[in-house]
C-alpha cells in the first residue's frame, strides 16, 4: 500500500481558481490523481478546468465523496480554509500556503483538537504516492513506486533524494513534506507510526533540519520500541549561520536543541542510520535494504 493517500483518494482543491491553484490542480490531474472538485465561496455551480465548483468544503464532500483536500489559498485566508476542512471532517488536508501568520495557527490547532483530520503543513510541499496520488507542489518526473518512505521538512532535499533514489532503482512508497513552519500539523512521529504499519514500506528516509524539536521527538519515539524497519536520517544545518535569535536559551524543552549535532546524536542513539551528507543517503538506504 502506501500511507494516507493512494489511487482511491478523491481530492478537492480549496482555492482552485487562482493561478497557483489552477497550475497545481492541472499538474496533479495530468499525473493521474483523482481530483473531483474545487471550492471557492461564490463560485458554487460553476466549473473550472473541467471540475465542478462548490461554495463550501462540506457541500463538495457530500456531492463528490472527496476525502482529501489541497489548500492553495492566500496566507490571510489559509487558517479559515484549514478550519473549514477540519470542521467538514475531511480525512487528509494538505496546506501548501506559505507565510501563514503563526497566531492564526492557534485557532487551527484548537479546531484540530479531538478531530480525526490529518493536517499536513502549512508551508508543505505536500504528499505523493508515486503512480497513485499527488497532493502538493512537488515535481513528479523522477518519482517511481517502490518501498522507500520519505518524510521531510525540506522540499528541495526531498526532490534531490527522491531523484537519487529512483536512479538507483529504489522507488518510493509515499513521500511526505511536513512543512517548513514552526507550527504545523502532521509530525515526524506521526509519519513514522504510519510507515511502520505500511506493508509496502521497507525503509524510511527522514530529512531533518536545524531548529524545532521534530528530530528529538522522532528519536524519543524510535528509542521507545523495536521499530522493525531501517530508518536513515539526514539532518542539515550543521554549518547554518548562527541565528541572531534572542534568548531562546533555557527553552530547549519547548524549542528543541540548539545544534544539529545534538539532534544527530539522539537519532543515532535511537538506532537510526545517519547519512553523512545529501549524496550519502541513497547508498545508506541501499545498504540497509541489503542487510
Amino acid at each position: 500500500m502506501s500511507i494516507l493517500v493512494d489511487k482511491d483518494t478523491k481530492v478537492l482543491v480549496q482555492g482552485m481558481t487562482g493561478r497557483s491553484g489552477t497550475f497545481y490542480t492541472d499538474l496533479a490531474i495530468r499525473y493521474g490523481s483523482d481530483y473531483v472538485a474545487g471550492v471557492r465561496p461564490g463560485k458554487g455551480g460553476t466549473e473550472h478546468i473541467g471540475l465542478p465548483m462548490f461554495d463550501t468544503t462540506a457541500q463538495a464532500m457530500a456531492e463528490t465523496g472527496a476525502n482529501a483536500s489541497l489548500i492553495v489559498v492566500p496566507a490571510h485566508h489559509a487558517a479559515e480554509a484549514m478550519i473549514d476542512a477540519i470542521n467538514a471532517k475531511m480525512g487528509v488536508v494538505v496546506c501548501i500556503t506559505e507565510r501563514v501568520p503563526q497566531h492564526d495557527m492557534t485557532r487551527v490547532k484548537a479546531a484540530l483538537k479531538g478531530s480525526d483530520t490529518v493536517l499536513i503543513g502549512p508551508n508543505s510541499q505536500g504528499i505523493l504516492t508515486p503512480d497513485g496520488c499527488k497532493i502538493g507542489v512537488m515535481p513528479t518526473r523522477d518519482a517511481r513506486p517502490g518501498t522507500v518512505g520519505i518524510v521531510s521538512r525540506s522540499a528541495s532535499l526531498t526532490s534531490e533524494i527522491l531523484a537519487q533514489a529512483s536512479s538507483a532503482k529504489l522507488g518510493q512508497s509515499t513521500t511526505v513534506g511536513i512543512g517548513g513552519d514552526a507550527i504545523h500539523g502532521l509530525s515526524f512521529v506521526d509519519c513514522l507510526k504510519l510507515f511502520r504499519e505500511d506493508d509496502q514500506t521497507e525503509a524510511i528516509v527522514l530529512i531533518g533540519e536545524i531548529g524545532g524539536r521534530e528530530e528529538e521527538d522522532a528519536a524519543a519515539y524510535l528509542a521507545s520500541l523495536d521499530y522493525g524497519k531501517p530508518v536513515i536520517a539526514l539532518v542539515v544545518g550543521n554549518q547554518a549561520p548562527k541565528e541572531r535569535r534572542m534568548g531562546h536559551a533555557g527553552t530547549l524543552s519547548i524549542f528543541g536543541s540548539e545544534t544539529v549535532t545534538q539532534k544527530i546524536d539522539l537519532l543515532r542513539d535511537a538506532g537510526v542510520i545517519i547519512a553523512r551528507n545529501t549524496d550519502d543517503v541513497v547508498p545508506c538506504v541501499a545498504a540497509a535494504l541489503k542487510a
Partner: protein
Amino acid sequence: MILSEYKSKELIAQYGVKIPDGRVATTAAEAEERCREIDATKYVVKAQIGAGGRGLAGGIKFAATPSAVRSEVTKMLGKPLITEQTGTSGEIVSEVYVEAAVAIAKDVFIAIVLNPVTAQPTLLASANGGVEFEQMARMDPDVVSSIVLIEGADISGFLNGLGFADSSAAANAIASATKAFVANDMTLLEINPFAYTEAGEWLAVDAKVSLDGNAMYRHPELESLVSDDSLTPAERVAHENEINFVKLDGDIGVVVNGAGLGLATNDMLVAAGGKPANFMDIRTTATSFQITRGVELLLEDPTVKLILLNVHGGGMTVCDTVAEGVAFAYARSSRKLPIIARLAGQNAEWAMKILNDRLLPVETCKDMTSAVSRAVAIANGRAA
C-alpha cells in the same frame, strides 16, 4: 523581525507594561539634551542593536550626569559592537537609548512564546534573570518553568511558586504583556531583566520583541517599526527580492534554491574544507530578475572568489529560471567569477545551455560531492 530594545519597550508600554523613563538619540549632543527631560539621579546608556549579549560586550554603560551621558554616547555611536551573537565584525551602533537607572531589588526572566505543538501563548519564567541568564539557562534548562496563558490560568500562583515577589502585581504586568503579544502578532516577547524595584514596582528594564513578518499586512500601524533591525543592507536587498540570504565569513559564494538544499550545501562545503561566503535560499516565488539581484550581491562582494551554483529544479523554480538570473547578473558585471555548477531536476539541460550560450565561465559537475570538492579546490588555490 526583531525590534530593538526601545521599540520593543515603547510597544509593550502602550499595553500597560511599566518601563523606565527613556529617550532615544542618534547623536551625543541629542542624548545629553534629551536625558535632561528624564527625572533621574543616574542614567543608563544602551546601544540599540538587534543582537543580544550587549551587557557583557560593553553596550550598556552607567552615567551620573548628562555630560557623562554625552561622553559615553560618543564612545559608542558609529562603532561596531561585537557580542556573542553578532559574529566577528559586530553591529554598528547608530542609535542609543538613555534611560533612568532604577534601584533593582530582584531581576527575573520572563518570555512569552507560542508553543510550537499547541500554538497556545505560553509563559516562560525564571526567578533568575539578568545579563548572565543566557549562559545559566544553557547549562541548566530546568531553570525555566512554563505555563499556558489561557483564560483562567493562575499566573499569580505560578509566579508565587517560583518565588516572585508581589506575584499578583507581576501577573498583572504579564497579562498586559500577553495582550501586546497577541494584538501585535509577536512570535517572541522577552523581558529580561523583568525587575522588581526597591520602590516595589515591576518594570521591564530590557525587552526584546520579535514580530511575525507574515502578519504585518494586518498591522499598518507598525509600519514605522518593522524594518528588521538585525538585517545587514545586503540581507535586506535579498529579502526584498524573494531570496533568503545571510552573509558569512568565507570566500565561496553559493547560489542555491531551497532552504534545505542551501543548508546541505554549506554543510558539505565546510566538511570538505571550504568556507561559504553566504547562505542562500531562492524562494519558489523568485523571478529571474530577483535572482539576478541575489547573484549581484555576491559579484559585488570582494571577498567572494567563485560561485557554486547548486540547483534542483522542480515545483515552481525550474533550473532555467535560475540560469537566466545568473546570466543576466554576469552580463551587467565586469567581475566574471568562475562558476561551478551542479544542475539537476526540471530543465537542467536547458539551464546548462543558457549558461554556455552566454559564454559564462562555467564548469559543470555531475553531483553535489564533486561540485563541492571542485569549488573548495579553486577557492584554496588548487585550481589545476
